[in-house]
């Protein structure tokens, strides 16, 4: 290093975040290896043929006799999944169950988020904590709690029999209704939190102005609150819809044989049938379906980040 350069160095302020730039390599590398890497491999395996071996699929590259590598990809698994009626039904049914669950979450969650956002400021944190608290208790056990409620000898049937409303127990458990209840129950906090964050920031002056100008409370809500809370509605719906599409535990524990969902079928295909390539093709198709909602979620999150 020349003496001039050495003398000049202290004057230029060093990048104070240089260490952070270097340290970033750790989480970056980790996520590349364990988050992005796996998806590329799923893509690869979904193109392979199943064989009875460990691991049970053919290698993607076959080394030919002349030593050249040949791409041994086949779209058979996709052709199978896409032409099978049961799979088609499963995909459509997942869309249906996830969409209805999201809508139900919105119907229950919006008034709650609205009520919390309009509650006395001292009470808001307590109410929010009450919304989040169940989330900290095991998801599996919360779904399990509904098995006790909905069973043939479950609490709801016992209560209704005792009250004389019904003569024979209703079939509640192992139905789509049970799946909806479980979904709303499990994902409600994910709907309420973004809605609350949005409604709480709503400028109260706007609402007052609308009221002063003669709007009735119902009109204020319809013309001011509802349109302004749209970003919160979108965020909440995406946070519920995307994981609900791939849900495994809820349809397996609460649903009936007809409550087929992709997550459940993928799990079965993988563990019971040991058909890894078909499970892989399943996963890629599920991801393809979710690409649009996940992209939307990322877009809205990035925009929200820019605003703050």
């Amino acid at each position, binding site marked *: 290093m020349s003496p001039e350069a050495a003398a000049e160095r202290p004057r230029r302020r060093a990048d*104070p975040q240089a260490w952070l730039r270097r340290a970033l390599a750790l989480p970056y590398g980790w996520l590349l290896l364990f988050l992005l890497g796996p998806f590329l491999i799923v893509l690869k395996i979904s193109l392979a043929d199943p064989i009875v071996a460990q691991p049970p699929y053919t290698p993607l590259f076959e080394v030919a006799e002349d030593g050249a590598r040949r791409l041994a990809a086949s779209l058979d698994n996709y052709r199978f999944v896409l032409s099978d009626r049961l799979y088609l039904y499963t995909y459509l049914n997942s869309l249906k169950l996830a969409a209805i669950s999201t809508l139900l979450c919105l119907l229950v969650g919006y008034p709650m988020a609205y009520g919390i956002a309009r509650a006395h400021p001292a009470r808001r944190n307590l109410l929010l904590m009450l919304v989040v608290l169940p989330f900290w208790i095991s998801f599996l056990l919360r779904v399990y709690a509904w098995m*006790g409620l909905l069973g043939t000898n479950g609490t709801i049937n016992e209560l209704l029999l005792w009250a004389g409303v019904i003569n024979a127990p209703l079939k509640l458990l192992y139905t789509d209704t049970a799946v909806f209840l479980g979904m709303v129950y499990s994902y409600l906090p994910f709907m309420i939190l973004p809605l609350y964050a949005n409604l709480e920031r709503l400028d109260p002056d706007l609402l007052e102005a609308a009221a002063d100008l003669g709007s009735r409370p119902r009109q204020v809500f319809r013309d001011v609150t509802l349109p302004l809370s749209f970003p919160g509605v979108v965020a909440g719906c995406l946070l519920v819809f995307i994981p609900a599409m791939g849900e495994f535990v809820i349809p397996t524990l609460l649903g009936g044989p007809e409550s087929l969902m992709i997550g459940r079928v*993928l799990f079965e295909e993988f563990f019971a049938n040991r058909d890894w390539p078909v499970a892989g093709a399943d996963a890629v198709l599920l991801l393809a379906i979710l690409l649009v909602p996940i992209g939307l979620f990322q877009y809205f999150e990035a925009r929200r980040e820019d605003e703050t």
Partner: protein
Amino acid sequence: MKRHGTFVLSMMAFGFAFLYVPIALVVLYSFNGSSLSTVWGGFSLRWYGELFRNEEILRAVLLSLRIAALSASVATALGTLAGMAMARLPRFRGRTLFTAMILTPLVMPEVLTGLSLLLLFVSLHDLFGWPGARGGSTIAIAHITFSTAYVAVIVRSRLTGMDPSLEEAAMDLGARPLRVFLDITVPLIAPALLTGWLLAFTLSLDDLVIASFVSGPGSTTLPMLIFSKVRLGVTPEINALATVIIVIVATGIAIAARTMRRREARHAERPAPLGTGTG
């Protein structure tokens, strides 16, 4: 002016009842002496006795706690770096990809994460002979991966709401970057670190699907054990186990909430000179 319409109030009452009645019933039935899950057979601690004598459950609890503590700690370290980078570095190479990778695990269905990670482990094993056997360590790697994203989001939102002038002042006074990080930044974001660690710990303890994929023979975590037991119906022992978990979680949250409220109260009643604050 009335703050709430009747509709909103009744929806809130309904919503909170909906959230809490099922949990309350599990707790109630855990004290049921009858082995018929929903027929009340008098108050009894029978299921708690069976629970604490069940070695299979205790082994699963220990394995799950070990994985959760390890993955929460590593995820908090990685997630803090990731969150700081997102909040403090306006641009770096691959920022878009990085942000996408942080946001994806928040919504990714677990079957996808689990299946893809298992296939990665199998491929790595074929290529490098690592990981030799799947079990606790592969589950921990999987949990670190998604927990890092949650911690990063929490740390980022805490940092973006924070004035960087304290750190800049320390830097101008000649403190080295690592000093500034340890002495200024970490104490300031401590609540976010605690929340992140607890969340990562809970997410790890809670995970059934991903662990089922990446686990190997002999490594049964608590959710895997619970799932195999409840798959066929209601089990009184699991009611007792759920009650124990609920009590621990509620106590933990109450303590965390109190600590944070105290901290905030202490911050509010400044300016006390640094170092003279009482605990």
